[in-house]
């Protein structure tokens, strides 16, 4: 175990967890835009994948994508503002938690349609190939998306055209209230990918270093033209969205699942390897907490978008824009009608 990278990964994972905890607070304060907030607590091991990505690489996420984006360098204040539907958010408060995106950081978009963002990486792969760039594009999605046909269409295309693409399934064992063995005829997901001609692998998502080794291999392969599929096995610590108390899970199962904690695992490994002391790790934790407190406060203080903003960005500037209803009614009624 080398020193700096694992420690940095720990820090990123802690920042994710702290961020998600603040998202929960945002909701409880009644400051979030809606209640469709899907926390990635328990899934922080995905940092092993994002850490294998490079500048220029792109990605799409599902509805539970805060962690991935943060790990790819997002500004937590702009993220939190977006989740609050504020003008200072990544999408000016129009997208929200499920549609956050950032062109600069290669985030081609979170998606509220299960599986919706998966084929976009195929297109990103074509762009990279046609332009001779060695960029990889990674689709992050949940186990639920394993039931969406478009995943197989996209995997087939990636394999057929040998595109620099990785499909990363964050299997948190549940799609809403449905445990994965109640949605899949057979749960060996990597075999499905292999049957389509992809490299396919499974890894314990609670062990970020194992994830990272596996992801580094697969991403290198993808850059060289062997697209891949990686399943991260994790556990969804909390409910599906903010209103869900997971009555369909037993307390025992939840306790067991939460023992598969990527942060606790990493902490133990760092201490055992002598890379960091308890005090150093505590400081990292505290810094992350403070950073996210600030992001939360900034988001709450930020202004809401102006109502007119809703008409912008439907189409590009300089092209015909949507006609606001008030303008239409004015045009019809202002002159009066035949008397």
């Amino acid at each position: 175990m080398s020193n700096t990278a694992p420690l940095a990964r720990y820090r990123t994972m802690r920042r994710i967890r702290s961020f998600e905890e603040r998202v929960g607070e945002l909701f409880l304060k009644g400051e979030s835009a809606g209640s469709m907030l899907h926390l990635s607590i328990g899934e922080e091991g995905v940092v092993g994948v994002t850490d294998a990505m490079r500048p220029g690489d792109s990605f799409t996420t599902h509805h539970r994508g805060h962690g991935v984006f943060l790990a790819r360098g997002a500004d937590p204040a702009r993220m939190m503002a977006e989740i609050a539907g504020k003008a200072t958010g990544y999408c000016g408060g129009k997208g929200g938690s499920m549609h956050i995106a950032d062109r600069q950081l290669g985030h081609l978009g979170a998606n509220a349609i299960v599986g919706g963002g998966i084929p976009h990486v195929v297109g990103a792969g074509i762009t990279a190939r046609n332009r001779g760039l060695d960029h990889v594009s990674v689709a992050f999605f949940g186990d639920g998306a394993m039931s969406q046909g478009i995943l197989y269409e996209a995997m087939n295309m990636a394999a057929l055209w040998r595109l620099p693409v990785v499909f990363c399934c964050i299997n948190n064992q549940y799609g809403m209230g449905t445990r994965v063995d109640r949605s899949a005829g057979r749960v060996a997901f990597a075999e499905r990918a292999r049957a389509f001609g992809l490299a396919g692998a499974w890894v314990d998502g609670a062990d970020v270093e194992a994830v990272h080794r596996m992801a580094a291999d697969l991403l290198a392969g993808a850059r060289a033209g062997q697209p891949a599929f990686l399943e991260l096995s994790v556990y969804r610590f909390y409910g599906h969205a903010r209103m869900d108390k997971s009555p369909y899970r037993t307390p025992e199962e939840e306790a067991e699942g939460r023992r598969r904690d990527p942060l606790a695992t990493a902490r133990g490994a760092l201490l055992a390897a002598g890379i960091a002391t308890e005090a150093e790790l505590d400081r990292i934790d505290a810094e992350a907490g403070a950073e996210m407190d600030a992001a939360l406060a900034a988001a709450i203080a930020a202004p809401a978008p102006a109502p007119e903003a809703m008409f912008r960005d439907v189409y590009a500037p300089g092209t015909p824009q949507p006609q606001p209803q008030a303008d239409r009614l004015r045009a019809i009624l202002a002159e009066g009608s035949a008397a």
Partner: protein
Amino acid sequence: MSTTTYREALRQALIDAMTADADIILLGEEVGVYGGAYGVTKGLIELFGESRVIDAPISEAAIVGAAVGAALTGLRPVAELMYVDFAGLAMDQIANQAAKSRSMFGGQMGVPMVLRSQGGTGRSAAAQHSQSLEAWFLHTPGLRLAMPATVSDAYHLLRQALTQPDPVVFLEHKGLYALKGEVGDAPDAPWGAPAIRRAGSDLTLVAWSRMVHESLAAAEALAGAGVSAEVIDLRCLNPLDLGPVFASVARTGRAMVVTEAALTGSAASEIAARIGEHCFDWLEEPVLRIGGEDIPIPVAPALERAAIPTAALIADAARWLVHREAPPWA
């Protein structure tokens, strides 16, 4: 008569229908153990078992496709799309399979299924979870289309839908589940017929689903301003029976059609065009459409609200239409 909620009325309709007809099955995401994303199917898996209340994988296309196959072979499936926004994933099975089978096969087989879903704004659910897509179904010959606005219709229209020989797209509204009201002993009108929710003489307001309530609120406000608005709830868009609307417009001479959907290409345009064709001689003013803005729904709560018609906007436009009284925003 019993007082309940829209959600509970739907649930009771399913229970009563499933009790009466063993061929009815439910098929959809989270309809079983979870009880439905909005609680409509809560407890049904306990009542009817896993073979009749089937939790499906997240496979919208195959859910609808399986329902088509079940219907072709004799069952009466209720397929559920958790949000109508997901219709794009299943549109081939809806529009090319369910809708066309009877006709293509020369009447040999029908597809007696109900496709339940819900749409609309009100939860800051953003652009992919807030749409009103009934226009897609309206434009598909072979589909029936019901959209209950009231608690009583939630019950009775669903019961009626579950007796139809052809596929019924049944669209609930996420903003109405908590609505309280009474379930009448009989439907407010026969299947496919509109209901006059408020009588009036100056103006005819035509609406369905949640916009019936905005229209009623507008009519109430208008009454205070000396404008008497008739409010007609279409209930079904297919069959689409505009006879009562034409009769109303013949009396009032003025019509407005209100929809929550993006206005362009909406069902409101169809209805306005028909009123224009059939009521030309009676119209004192243009048939006015009030609809959602032609934009994807933004997540920010204030923007979401501004993107769709409110009672205030309807009343403003009505006063202008009837009394030439321009509102502040005009």
